[in-house]
Each structure stands twice: as C-alpha cells, then as structure tokens.
C-alpha cells in the first residue's frame, strides 16, 4: 500500500509521483485530493489527485517543493512507501457541458487543473487553457494539455509563450471570444486576480482553494474560508468555490499563519540533511 511506483522530476522543484492506492484510484474524481503523512513524526498535508489509473490501482500527484514536508517527499525513491494516504477527499468538480470553457493554471496548480480539463472535455466542452509559470523551466504538463485543449503559454520573462501574467492572457482571450465559464487553479494570489479579471468580463469562475488543512474531513476548521460572508470548511464544502464569493485577503493572511514555524522546521531539516550527506 502507498508505494511510490514511479517518480519523475518534471520541472525545477516539481516532482510527479504515481502512487499505489486502489481505493483512491478507484474513487477519486476531478478536483479531489488526498491527505498524506510521511512518517510517525510527520504532519498531514493535502495534495491533489492529478490523475488515476484505476486498472492498476495507481493515482498521481504532482508536488512542488516549498518546505520541509514537500522536500522530504521529493527525496523518496521509487519503491518507497508513504506511511499514510487518505482520500479521496473534498467534493468533485461540477462537471457538465457548459460550452466554451477557459481554464487557467499557474505553477503546480496546473496539475490540479488537469483532471478537471479531461473531465470537461469528456462531456463535450470546448476547452482553452492558459498555463502560466515564472519561466519556461517551471511550466509543467504542457503536452498533456495540448492533447485536449487549445493552449496558451504565459511566462513572467517571456521564455515561453506570452510574456506577462495569466490575467494578461485572460484579458486577451475574453476580448477575442465568448466564454461560458472558467476555472482558475494556482497560487492564491493568482486566483484572486483571475477572479477580478473574470468578473470584469462577467464570466463566472471556479477556483480551487488551498488553505492550511489538518484532518481534511471537516473535524478541525483549520481550513475555514469566508465564502459569501459565511464560514465554509474547504475540505468538506470545497475545495472548489465560486471565485466571486471568496474573501481572498483573509485566505492570503491565513496561509501565512505558520510562516515562522515553517521556517524553523525547514531549516532544521536542511541542516540535518546537510550533515548526513
């Protein structure tokens, strides 16, 4: 159980894993996630189910190294196991035939977007995808998206596709064509600005929120966000919400609540890793 059967580095600091877990691979739908714990002293962190192969009992997760736990995970090798994997959690995306759909993915959020894109495609939507990253080296899964949609690339420095940010591309597309709905998945700040852009053009938008979680089953309230003025638990009420209704500034602040401890934890880990090398 929970064996890593395949691991690939797909971009700077980004790792693509296929993990054996028949139940997750069988039940997971687009937009859902797992919570993992690496070892007895580990923390619980949520990661999106980026793809599944139910016939082999495998599911995929694409992980960006940002701190201690993701770094530790990135050091795992094929054949290693993850102590705990629980899922799929959260609600699946609302997949139906909307017509013309614009998908916007940033950074590792691109991986979250992938199963949503596939499912939307399967029910007959016409899909356009904007994929953004800092530079060409951080862009992931471009070929996979090209197979199912029209793809527009955007990088901060112009090393691939358009130079700029994803909202520039949204602006361009919204001026050219009519979209019935859009999805934005990526860093919180990106989703906030995508929401503003979508609102500007009156296009409804789904976003996938990534607040700090503990259990992922509705029992702690760590993941609470304000949506339409009400407290919602992202793990059981989401993780997808309509962007127009989200209190973004509150979420941004909540994401920073353990910065100090996260730094201590990561530095301690890097020091120990350095000593053992």
């Amino acid at each position, binding site marked *: 159980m929970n064996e890593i059967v395949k691991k690939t580095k797909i971009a700077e600091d980004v790792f693509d894993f296929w993990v054996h877990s028949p139940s997750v691979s069988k039940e997971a739908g687009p937009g859902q996630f797992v919570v993992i714990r690496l070892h007895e002293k580990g923390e619980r962190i949520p990661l999106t189910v980026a793809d599944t192969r139910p016939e082999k009992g495998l599911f995929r997760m694409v992980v960006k190294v940002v701190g201690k736990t993701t770094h530790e995970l990135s050091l795992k090798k094929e054949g290693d196991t993850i102590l705990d994997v629980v899922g*799929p959690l959260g609600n699946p995306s609302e997949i139906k035939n909307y017509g013309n759909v614009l998908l916007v993915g940033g950074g590792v959020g691109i991986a979250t977007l992938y199963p949503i894109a596939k499912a939307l495609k399967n029910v007959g939507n016409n899909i356009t995808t904007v994929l953004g990253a800092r530079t060409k080296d951080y862009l992931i899964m471009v070929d996979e998206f090209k197979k199912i949609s029209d793809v527009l690339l955007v990088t901060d420095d112009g090393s691939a596709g358009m130079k700029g940010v994803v909202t520039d591309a949204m602006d361009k597309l919204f001026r050219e064509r009519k979209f019935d709905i859009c999805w934005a998945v990526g860093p919180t700040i990106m989703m906030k600005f995508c929401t503003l852009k979508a609102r500007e053009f009156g296009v409804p938008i789904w976003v996938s929120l990534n607040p700090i979680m503990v259990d992922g089953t509705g029992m702690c309230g760590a993941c609470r966000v304000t949506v339409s003025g009400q407290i919602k638990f992202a793990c059981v009420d989401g993780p997808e919400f309509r962007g127009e209704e989200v209190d973004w500034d509150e979420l941004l602040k909540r994401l920073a609540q353990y910065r100090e*401890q996260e730094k201590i934890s990561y530095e301690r880990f890097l020091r120990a890793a350095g000593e053992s090398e």
Partner: protein
Amino acid sequence: MKNRKTPMKEQSPESRRRNFEEVALGYTLEEAVAEAQRCLQCPTHPCVSGCPVGIDIPGFIRKLREGKLEESYRILKSYNNLPAVCGRVCPQEVQCESRCVVGKMKDSEPVAIGRLERFVADWAAENLEEEVKPLAGSKKEKVAVVGSGPAGLTAAADLAKMGYHVDVFEAFHKPGGVLVYGIPEFRLPKGIVEREVNYIRKLGVNFYLNTVVGKTVKVKELLSEYDAVFIGTGAGTPKFMGIPGTNLNGVYSANEFLTRVNLMKAYLFPEYDTPIRVGKKVAVIGAGNTAMDAARSALRLGAEKVYIVYRRTEREMPARREEYHHALEEGIEFLWLTLPIRYIGDANGNVEAVECVRMELKEADGSGRPRPVPIEGSNFILEVDMVIEAIGQGPNRVLLSEFPGLKLNEHGYIKADEDTGATSVKGVFAGGDIVTGAATVIKAMGAGKKAAQFIHSYLTGEWNPWQK
C-alpha cells in the same frame, strides 16, 4: 470507617503545568485496598444503575479487597472493554459514584469507584500476560463498524467476542476517536488507548485506518458487502462564534488545537512536524471539558496567562468539578459572566485582543439554566494573542452527506432507536455522539454495547425492526 475517599497522588500544580505527563498518579495496592474497604457491599448496590454499562461494581471491589486482582479485572473486563480509560475519564460524580450509598451519608464521600477501576486495569496491564483468543470470524456474518471512538471500539469488541467477522473503518491514521485526538495526554496517556485497541485487534478485529466511509469506501459498497453496519462517527464538527474576527490567525477551534497537540504531537514541534502557535496570553471561550483541556494544554505549551471566558457562572459551568479544580490549581483564570463580541486583529491578520461584554443572569431559558444577558456599556478589551473557541460541536458530516435514506433528527444527528441503535436503514445501527450529540465516553460505549447485542439479534433472525 473513613468518610473521605483515599486521596490519589498527583503531580504538584507547579510541576505539572509545564509538562504533558499524567496529572493523577494512581493508587498503590495498599491505597486501593484501603479504598475498597470503604465499600459496604450493599445488597441493593445502587451504584450499578449509575453506570451506563452496568458494571458489577461491588463484585470487582470485593475481589480487589480480597487481593484477587485478576478475578477483579475479569469482572471489569466482562462489562467494559476500556476500564483503564473509563477509570480515568468517566464523570463518576454524576454516574456510578453519585448513587453510592456511602456518599449519601452525612459528610461522607462516595467510594472512589473510578479510581479503583483504574487501579485494577493498570495492575492488569502490568501484571497479566493477556491470553486473548482471536474469537472473530467463527460466524459467517460480517459487520462493518464506522469510526473507532469508544462507541465503535465497544461494538467491534463485543461483536468479535460473539464470533462475527468485524471490520472497523477509521478516517484518521490512529484508532480511538476523541480518546486520541481530543483528550490530552495529561488526562489520558495515549499508551493506554493503544493497549486497549491492541486487545481488540487480538480478538481478531480488522482495522482499516485512513479510510473515510463515504469517500474512500462508498456507503453502497458497505451495505452490499456487510450483513450489518454500526455507525459511531462522533460529533466532531467544531462550531464557531461567528463574531467579527473569527477567522483571524491565532483563533482556533478547540478541535483543531487539541488535534494538533494530541494526535499530531505539536507540543513536541519541531521534532514533530505539525506546527502550533504558542500564545503568551490565551483566551479559551466556553467552560466545558473541552475548554478545560484546551486551556490546560495551552498552559503546558508555555502560555503565561490563560483565561477561560464564559458567559454564565461557575454554577452553570458544564465541566467536571475535578477538572475545574485542576485548572484552578494550575493558575487558569476564570472570567465568569463574560461574552466575547469581537476579535481584534493586527495588520497581518493576527488576533491581538478580544472585546468582551459583561453579562448578568436573568430568569431561566429553555435549557433550564439562567439566561445571560449583556450589560449595556460594560464592554472591555482583553489583550490576547491566541483564542481557542470551545463552544460545542456538531455531527461529523462526511458520512452523513453520502448516506441517502439515513434519517437525521432536527439537530442533524442520526435518528436511532434509543434501546437498540436501529436506524431508518435496514441493517444499519448507530450510537455514541453521532446519535446523542456530544456526551461521554461511557455513554458512547454503552450505546456500542447495546447495538452489538441487537445486531446479534438481528443477524440471528430473532428480531427485525425493519420488517413490515
């Protein structure tokens, strides 16, 4: 005969307020026997009717004072699968001990039944090589148990003893429910829960951890693969005040705070990865057991000052007296008749103060308790850098939202027959906090026990409440 309970040694308040080790240290054999001598062995033994699982209290006490500890333990264990847990956390003062004849005499305290139960269970853990036979699986019927809190554990153990094949599904990575994620180490060492769970494993019960029924395993699948299902998913959804500032950083639900500290061992950060804030000045809202646990844990993490903020008074406080006294001894300050109305944050969204208003008590409300009413103009600011809301919990939702046909009551808990645990769905039983709302460990165990009996009656075909 002495009219007071034999005192139990405790860590001194000065030392224990900074560590997570157990507060109460337990009896020695001499102390336990001395306490057992206080029992009158009354023929009517009213104490028994105060115990939700009906333990033969005079029986186990008699064996204890005769020095037959193993026999004493056998008696306990035949009624209660978790004696070491119940001896520690049962609110005995309102259960068994409240009915004890000795306690009814003038100026006399009841027999310390809970302490004796704890003593015998701890003695057994240290001195008995438990020969547990795997009893599960001799019958062909399969029962699924959802949730491994006290209700689920009890149902599972009893059904296994009857020979059923029992699979327990638990969402968390550790079995035990509130016993592992809620009640702190200093009141209930986690090793004890582990020991009791291991015993149930040895009976042949399978535990599927990290398995959320409704998500990892679909309800439909469960219903088709098992002959009966017991639901004991608890009341773990935290409620929030919802006042301005509720989502500021540093405002926790007690569940989050306690889960981080207990289950994830955040008090050992950074050795353990899960972070926790260490507040200097902490306000805990509410005055139930959960509030006491949160307040005393915050203190142990290193807080300089911990307040309990409660809108009623000491008299209406739902916490156990014993825990209240422990909290007082440890230096926790109680602000009675005080209601928070707003949390105030700094520019980064960190809580830095609570605005409160003073209350006065007016005539009783629907719950029979005096109704607290704000005193106009009595607002004041309490400076704090951390808040823990412990104002109650609702039903756990993951399963309920995925279970068509399962009838709920007006509060969102599962509607189940009080005597049998039978729900609206054929072959499905429920018990514990998911039926009653937040209650007690032993009540949840009682519900698990009863349900196990009726699951047995149902599976043998003797009884079928769903038959039209």
